[in-house]
């Protein structure tokens, strides 16, 4: 391929927000990965480096002293002074570096263990059935907007103890941070302040009226070394749970349905052999990993021959890692019973997605419920499917008929 085919030179000028990259980033990733320079660089969108080989991306994730989490989105955040009282609020533990990272993470992990998230399974299945009830008689539906998008936001709202009937508002704020806001600083700032302001009010309300079995109340009463955790930490955790728990899982559900709509043989395999589900979920996560995270270089260093300076941004494209033929046999094929699958859809190292057990549960229940009620379905028009990309990749409009 050449620069003109992509609209940019992949090695020295990639554009993660170009329409062709958002629609299908894999040709660009493949070209970079197989070139003499598998760590690409661009000056676009504030500048960044982009490794494309599995081993390099995992190394960036694991070398957290060199590749810090001072910033984690693919473009720079709003200026601190613009955030007023919320300038100190981050999204712990994803935005934390050691040593604080340790307690920031340890405090929330018990809420997301496999044992702890199991209690959300029945409610998630009821929710999925209710959504399907709403469109099954129409014979067609938007698998992304009418179904996938509606699920994780309600599960997270339930977990946090905030009203599920605010779901559309929450979704709008999250998209403001992770989609439109990445290239529009004004939208990003407004969305961020909406989220932080909302949780500040919810926290104030719980201080006056504590609730039972409510994650925000539990966090407020948490102690580390005999002291209550700071309120900014609690606001930050709520911020993270909303921002990281909605767009990501919804994208994964949507992309998996997009795939299954085009592969009747995979629908049949899952119907005939339900024991395939655990490996099938991992394979769909591998092939359609939604998330690209960023790191900030902590000190001048050389990485795979590239001179990186303190402050440089490095993108960790988990979709690129998961399609590296050095790690995965036939990486562009979905093989539901893939034997060895060290995929990094949830990242790797100390920042591995804390919510992965919940995400897997939602993905499995959403797909199982959909396939049980609607065994046969197909895309209405493959060319009409729209995608979001850059930070979180997944379909946003995906009409299917059944």
């Amino acid at each position: 391929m050449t620069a003109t085919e992509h609209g940019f030179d992949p090695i020295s000028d990639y554009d993660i927000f170009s329409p062709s990259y958002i629609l299908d980033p894999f040709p660009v990733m493949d070209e970079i990965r197989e070139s003499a320079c598998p760590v690409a660089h661009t000056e676009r969108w504030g500048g960044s480096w982009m490794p494309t080989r599995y081993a390099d991306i995992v190394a960036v994730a694991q070398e957290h002293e060199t590749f810090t989490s001072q910033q984690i989105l693919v473009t720079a955040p709003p200026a601190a002074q613009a955030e007023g009282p919320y300038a100190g609020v981050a999204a712990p533990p994803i935005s934390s570096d050691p040593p604080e990272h340790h307690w920031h993470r340890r405090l929330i992990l018990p809420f997301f263990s496999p044992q702890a998230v199991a209690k959300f399974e029945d409610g998630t299945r009821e929710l999925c059935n209710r959504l399907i009830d709403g469109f099954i008689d129409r014979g067609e539906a938007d698998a992304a907007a009418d179904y996938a998008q509606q699920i994780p936001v309600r599960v997270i709202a339930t977990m946090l103890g905030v009203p599920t009937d605010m779901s559309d508002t929450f979704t709008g704020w999250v998209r403001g941070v992770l989609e439109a806001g990445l290239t529009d600083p004004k939208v990003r700032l407004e969305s961020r302040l909406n989220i932080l302001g909302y949780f500040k009010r919810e926290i104030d309300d719980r201080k006056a009226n504590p609730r039972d079995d409510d994650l925000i109340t539990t966090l407020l009463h948490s102690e580390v070394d005999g002291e209550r955790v700071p309120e900014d930490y609690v606001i930050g955790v709520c911020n993270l749970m909303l921002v990281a728990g909605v767009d990501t899982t919804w994208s994964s559900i949507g992309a998996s349905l997009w795939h299954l709509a085009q592969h009747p043989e995979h629908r049949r395999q899952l119907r005939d052999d339900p024991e395939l589900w655990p490996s099938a979920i991992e394979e769909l996560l591998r092939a359609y990993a939604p998330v690209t995270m960023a790191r900030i270089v902590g000190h001048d260093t050389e990485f795979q021959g590239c001179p990186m300076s303190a402050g440089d941004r490095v993108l960790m494209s988990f979709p690129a890692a998961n399609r590296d033929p050095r790690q995965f046999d036939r990486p562009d094929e979905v093989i539901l019973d893939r034997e060895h699958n060290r995929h990094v859809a949830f990242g790797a190292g100390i920042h591995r997605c804390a919510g992965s057990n919940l995400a897997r549960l939602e993905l499995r229940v959403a797909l199982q419920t959909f396939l049980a009620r609607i065994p046969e379905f197909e895309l209405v028009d493959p060319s009409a499917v729209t995608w979001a990309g850059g930070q979180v990749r997944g379909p946003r409009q995906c009409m299917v008929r059944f």
Partner: protein
Amino acid sequence: MRVRVDADACHGHQSCAIAAPEVFGADDYGNAVVLVEGDIPVELEAKVRRAEGNCPERAITIEG
């Protein structure tokens, strides 16, 4: 066959428990624990090999 998990390398992906739920589980923080004491029953060996091959952190060691 025996199996152990390097607790420093494990970051709680739970890929092992998905591949071999009879052998691997999770502690309160979601990190992997080995549920089988001593030798792995022969009929579970293939699942344990699969678990080892699915760990993104390469935290699982098979002995024997």
